[in-house]
């Protein structure tokens, strides 16, 4: 982000944060800090601890151990002060469905202490931002999913918070609305608002400045999407298109050239130390193992490749929504 922003103290600082529910360790030893205006994505499967971490940062859950400073305020010591400074969109839609769009905005405006001309101006801004000006008097229960999410964002930014927590803001929303929603997040960030966004969509994670990869309650990796891909793989990727796939997979598992093999749709991704040097030998190796006409290309790794390396250890992700954005996001470069 801008140099001015990076000179300021971090918007969020988390040190060894931990949350236990009885004997279950939901979040364990998580530390990171977020620069003002940065978009930090929490990426991980359902139940990984993304929501629990966000809820602790919002003062909704008391941390079991560790420390979290939001806008330099300790959330465990003064959750009241934190609540005034943040905007929050919960994972489950939580506006009043039996109220209209304008009534919801007016309610949350009042809750944040806005009134008069300022409230009117902020409501107008939120309606325009959410593209709901023509639907101000519609009942929220009548709105489509994407519209509801934009309204929820509108309610969360009425009081001009400096930090926004968006917990899976695009779940259950069509791809076009998702894209539009991310444009709004980028606008917020451009205006200096720090955004923490959780998602389990791989493609969405690419829109973040940095990604915190979370799995089973621990922070597995933290960095920009490009960094994560580079660092996690420790090599380069070759995509193998061939038939039959299972014979090629079995052969490559035994192949000394391949550091790792994973199935991606109807292709295989093979991790090698040097893509250019290993391409030809790999084709030859496959031919030796009766896999003819293998089409091998060098590809840029996707976040999913990185995730598989960092978390899955070759296991395919189980969550159905998990792989939704994968595959089509991998741009082929021979």
């Amino acid at each position, binding site marked *: 982000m801008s140099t001015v922003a990076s000179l300021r103290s971090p918007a969020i600082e988390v040190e060894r944060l931990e949350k236990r529910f009885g004997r279950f360790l939901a979040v364990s030893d998580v530390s990171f800090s977020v620069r003002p205006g940065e978009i930090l994505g929490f990426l991980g499967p359902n139940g990984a601890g993304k929501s629990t971490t966000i*809820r602790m940062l*919002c*003062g*909704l*859950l*008391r941390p079991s151990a560790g420390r979290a400073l939001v806008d330099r305020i300790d959330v465990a010591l003064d*959750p*009241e002060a934190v*609540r*005034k400074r*943040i905007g*929050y969109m*919960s994972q*489950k*839609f*939580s*506006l*009043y*469905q*039996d*109220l209209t769009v304008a*009534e919801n905005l*007016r*309610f*949350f*405006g*009042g*809750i*944040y*202490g*806005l*009134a008069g001309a*300022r409230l009117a101006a902020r409501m107008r801004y939120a309606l325009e931002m959410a593209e709901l000006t023509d639907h101000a008097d519609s009942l929220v229960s009548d709105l489509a999913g994407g519209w509801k999410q934009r309204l929820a964002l509108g*309610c969360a*930014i009425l009081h*001009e918070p*400096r930090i926004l927590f968006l917990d899976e803001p695009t779940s259950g929303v069509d791809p076009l609305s998702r894209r539009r929603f991310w444009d709004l997040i980028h606008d*917020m960030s451009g*205006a*200096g*608002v720090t955004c923490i966004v959780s998602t389990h969509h791989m493609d969405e994670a690419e829109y973040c400045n940095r990604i915190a990869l979370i799995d089973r309650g621990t922070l597995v990796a933290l960095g920009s999407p490009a960094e994560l891909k580079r660092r996690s793989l420790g090599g380069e990727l070759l995509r193998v298109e061939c038939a039959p796939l299972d014979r090629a997979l079995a052969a490559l598992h035994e192949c000394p050239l391949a550091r790792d093999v994973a199935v991606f749709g109807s292709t295989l991704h093979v991790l090698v130390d040097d893509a250019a040097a290993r391409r030809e030998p790999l084709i030859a190796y496959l031919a030796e193992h009766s896999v003819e006409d293998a089409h091998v290309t060098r590809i840029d790794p996707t976040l999913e490749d990185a995730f598989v390396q960092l978390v899955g250890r070759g296991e395919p992700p189980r969550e159905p929504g998990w792989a939704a954005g994968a595959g089509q996001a991998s741009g082929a470069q021979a």
Partner: protein
Amino acid sequence: MGGGRRTSLGSAGVKLRRISAIAIKEVLQVWRDPRSLMMALLVPVMQMLLLGYGVNLDIANIPTCTYDEEGSPQSVDLLKHFQASRYFNLVANLNSERQIADAMDRGRCKIAIVIPADFSRDIAMTRYASVQAIVDATDDNTATLATAYARAVVQGYSDEVQAELALQLGQRTMPAPIAEQSRVWFNEDLESRNFIIPGVVALVLALVGAQLTSLTISREWERGTMELLLSTPVTPMELMIGKLLPYFAIGLLDAAICLAFALYLFAVPFRGAFSTLLFTTSLFLVVVLGIGYLLSVLIPSQIGASQMAMFATIMPISLLSGYAFPIDQMPAPIQALTYLVHARYYVTILKAIFLKGSSAAELWAPITALIVYAAAVAGLAARAFRRQLT
């Protein structure tokens, strides 16, 4: 998005904005759900009618049999006095004691009046005659009252006979018989209805009030709106005040309905000041709405909270508030328990305002008790409110 700090308003102003935002939201939600509004206004009407007509300790039209052994003009005259009384309803003229026993066994009558064969002769000769009343005492309240009413009828007849005799004998003045002279204050007609209806008002308000607010927090939990609300700077006290205000208005409307029924339908005398009634009723509403709210805070499911509001109010209030069953006739440990029942104080207040016309100053004790109760309930609710998820 400016990001710059605005000069912050006084915190009192912000508090008021939050409270009014919550109150307006609650009003809109009640308004959008007409069924709940109808319930809030119809239930007190039904309960007033049911309890007002249903609970009546007076007895009228007691089924009565007669057995006139004499059949003289005088005996027939006495029986006519019974017929004329609204307390007795003559159902049969019988001819033997056996028939009386039979009629009582079959439940045809609760009381039998037996006039002996020498009734008129005894009056003429000795000026002293007796009439027998046989009472079915399986229901002792009815039996006691029936005997007392029968004695009154006979006494009235006896006075007439004496006056007639005195006239016949040419006496201007006759020796005044020593008679009981009791005066009844505050409820001159000894109508149990006058005594009970103010208590019924308290009962209905306590039931309806707790129901009104018992859903208000649990609804937010069940619909998932609480999580977002908790992420805002709203305080438990602001939330409580904002949520109770609209229901307070509905509660006052309910109180007006109940009081209108008491005054116009049941024609209970009202001798107090309207301002005293409004003040004490408002105070009681705060208590009952607060109890419903407290339950809503403690029990996160709507059904659970609503049922608990029912249980927690209906039994203790109907038995221990003294609305129909006098507290000073309860055993001492039970009497001690009644001090925990909020309706007890309001029943005392309402009866005093209605029948005695008591002022707020005279009612300082129960009023203080209600104030303490209201503060305790509000404090507990604010403390019990979960400001965080678990």
